């Protein structure tokens, strides 16, 4: 009983507080799962590989894009770049414009994400001749 009191004394509390940061790192990953956690880089490269498949068909493009938009994230510019190039291979300009619209909507209240994406994608857009929704005037009624 006294041991508990000693442990909760000032010094004891201080050591507890000091040792806490050491515990956050292992707790951040799920201790109860042995499955390896996919890193962000692996995620990005997986999707880039998916959209870069040379014979990607229109169903795979739709499936991949709808799944990707379903995640709680905004895709990296390199993923979008490969997706837009997939649209070019499939001769589907409408889907390319739609993807840009979707990622803009996906950014939600963070207004700085979409300009960054456009800035990063600008070379691709120029090369493929894709107009942004703003250039086409469909971003507002």
């Amino acid at each position, binding site marked *: 009983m006294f041991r508990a009191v000693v442990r909760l004394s000032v010094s004891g509390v201080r050591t507890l507080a000091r040792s806490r940061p050491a515990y956050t790192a292992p707790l951040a990953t799920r201790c109860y799962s042995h499955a390896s956690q996919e890193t962000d880089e692996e995620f990005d490269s997986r999707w880039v590989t998916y959209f870069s498949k040379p014979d990607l068909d229109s169903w795979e*493009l*739709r499936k991949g*894009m*709808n799944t990707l*938009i*379903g995640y709680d994230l905004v895709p990296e510019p390199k993923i979008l770049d490969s997706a837009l190039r997939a649209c*070019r291979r499939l*001769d*589907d*300009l*409408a*889907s390319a*414009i*739609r*993807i840009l*619209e*979707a990622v*803009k*909507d996906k950014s939600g209240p963070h207004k700085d994400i979409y300009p960054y994406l456009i800035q990063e994608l600008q070379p691709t857009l*120029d090369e*493929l*001749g*894709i*107009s942004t*929704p703003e*250039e*086409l*005037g*469909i*971003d*507002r*009624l």
Partner: protein
Amino acid sequence: MAKLQREFQRQTQCPKRVDILFCSSVDTFVGTMLRLTASRVGSLFTRRMVVATTSSSVRMSSQGHEVSEVSDLSVPMYCDRLDTPLPDKPYQDALSVAEKDLKQKEKGPWGQMSNEDKLALYRLSFRQTYAEMKHPTGEWKTVIGGMLIFIGLTGLLVIWQRHYVYPPFPHTLDDDWQARQVQRMLDMRVNPVEGFSAKWDYEKKQWK
């Protein structure tokens, strides 16, 4: 397989036949039910009922229902959703000659296409843009208005019931009766420690 499919379509597109089948099965069901009761009651009334249902079903089956439009729900459909940027199929399937030309043009370099062409291509594939999808429809006004109308009608009904359906209030709810009841409770010193009478000051004759 195709033959089977055609056979299936032929059967489903023949409403009269389906109708007859349906009605006859209902007839047999009703007939069995009624025969069961008839064996017990054995009255003329039940027999008349059987005749009535049979004749009406014959009339129904002879007319047949008009099947206006059959949409095949098993094939991919177009649907505008924010979380599904690329629907299962393009919005327009049947393309005119000009639209087919446009589709051919799409196979060339996109940089040389005009904005009008790009917009036209977009509208071939999709019905609404994201901006149009997110535009508020104002439907909530209709919904709230409809709710208030029905709540108001219910209120009118309750008032009408209060006047014409319910009996008058019992006399124990009169103000006079209630006052005498409180006085009697005080006189009886109901719950004198922490309850009713404890809150009454018997010397000053008022509530504490």
